[in-house]
């Protein structure tokens, strides 16, 4: 699980072009949205694409992203429970 969390942080920084953010700065329990990362609704859609592309998880309802993307902890747990690749 710890590896998955670190992997997720790397992917989020890369996919969302967070050039000024380091892996160490993203805490496992920090809110991904509404916090210091400055993410917006397009970033949320990009994370939905990431779930599909890298973990084979298709979210039919984009609104569900609000629950899943609360923090790295919650996102990693969701991936662990639902991944198909």
């Amino acid at each position, binding site marked *: 699980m710890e590896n998955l969390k670190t992997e997720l942080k790397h992917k989020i920084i890369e996919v*969302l*072009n*967070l*050039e*000024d*953010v380091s892996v160490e700065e993203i805490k496992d329990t920090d809110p991904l949205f509404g916090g210091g990362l*400055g993410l917006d609704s*397009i*970033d949320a*859609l*990009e994370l939905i*694409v990431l779930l*599909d*592309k890298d973990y084979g998880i298709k979210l039919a309802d984009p609104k569900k992203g609000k629950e899943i993307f609360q923090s790295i902890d919650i996102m990693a747990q969701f991936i662990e429970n639902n991944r198909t690749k």
Partner: protein
Amino acid sequence: MPQWYWKNVKMNMMKKITACTLENSKITVDGNLIFESESNTFPEFAKEAYKNLELNYPKFHKMDSLSKLAFLAAEMILKDGDHSRTALVLANKSSSLDTDFKYQESINSQENYFPSPAVFVYTLPNICVGEISIKHKMQTENAFFVLDEFDENFLNNYSEQLLRSGKADKVLCGWVELFQENYKAFVYLLTL
């Protein structure tokens, strides 16, 4: 007096306050070199310029290349002062084709079909105008034209109408062209 005379008189009443050129890995403002880089590609050059000029605006990294080009050029001119009454009139030749191609690549294959929302939002040329407006909290008139070549008279006439109508006190006007490895921005601030 012939009509052309009055047209010229009117044009002469407009003032070009300051101008920025961005090409060949160089940024110049009113002829003065502001930044120069050894980088060969626009993305590298833009990243270096962003750091060197200490722009401190993380959203810059999310922009497509056309928006980065327009943003950098505009930033050189708009960084100081109040721009709540500054309009934006920009133009180029290749529209958003550079980004359109990138988006197309992400949907070419049925097996690897992952359209990127973050790329898609830049598949219009006037998004760069929006990025500048967001940065400077501008809720002013704006226009983006796709032209065969830089037509200063056309852009200045349009800008002058905005100024004379009272809808703006200043107009950031100019050319922001980018396609693959080729890029050039020439923007300037006009006022009456």
